[in-house]
């Protein structure tokens, strides 16, 4: 089976930045790189689901975290997953200070724009990873 990049956002439910990461992931897996990427449920890693643990060990992973708690990255690392790239939404927001993301159930347009910026960067990173660059 062709190798895919597994993109796992934290999906933090307390802040809009968790939703920004989640929407960014769907933009990549559904639209920008649907054949090259997939996602997995982060909670399955949290509870140690064998199939999901195997998935992150056998495929390069990109973690998208809403805040510095870095739940996605830490859960992938705790599962001995292949972390190839890590994005923290607050860092991207710092570079785009004019955007004010709001909403958890549904992002406002500025949050969606921030998710789009992150998704574009991740899609480029996916190409690099699959071309054999930047692998840890």
């Amino acid at each position, binding site marked *: 089976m062709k190798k895919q990049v597994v993109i*796992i*956002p*934290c*999906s*933090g*439910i*307390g802040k809009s930045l*968790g939703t920004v990461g*989640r*929407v960014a*992931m*769907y933009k990549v897996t*559904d639209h920008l790189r649907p054949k090259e990427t997939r*996602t*997995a*449920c*982060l*909670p*399955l*890693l*949290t*509870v140690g*689901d064998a199939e999901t643990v195997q998935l992150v060990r056998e495929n390069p992973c990109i973690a998208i975290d809403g805040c510095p*708690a*870095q*739940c*996605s990255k*830490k*859960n992938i690392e*705790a599962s001995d997953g292949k972390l190839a790239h890590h994005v923290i939404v607050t860092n991207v927001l710092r570079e785009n200070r004019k955007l004010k993301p709001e909403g*958890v*159930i*549904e992002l406002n347009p500025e949050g969606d724009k921030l998710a789009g910026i992150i998704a574009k960067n991740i899609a480029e990173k996916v190409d690099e990873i699959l071309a054999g660059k930047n692998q840890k």
Partner: protein
Amino acid sequence: MTLAKDKVGIICCSGEDLPEGTISRVATRLVLEKLRPDDTVTLCLPLFLAGGEDERAFARVFPTIAVDGCGKKCAEVGTTKYSGKPVATIVVSEIMKKYPQVRATSHQKLNAEEMEIAREIAEEIAKKVDEILCSQTK
């Protein structure tokens, strides 16, 4: 983390790979934002593993309700593993059996039918919140 009395913690799976995970997430937020904002709190499920003792103390202090998208019950299992067993568990895929005509397909944004189910699940969560808080005052 500030702990307050008389709150119920709602912990949902938010599973990324299934539409039911998005329904669990939306239903939970509807309770937190609209139905029982003064009576409920939440915690990101992956924070149980990534966080510290404060996060793990959460479910030992608050009664919790797990809201799971599928039968793997990650919210229930994770909360039990790192803190304490939830008082109640709601499984979206079980509730959806009442609506065989609806096949959940949306990941990012729920359609009207899926949103209606999320609202019904939110009502069910709110009812359980009331039962838990009522039993605590007896």
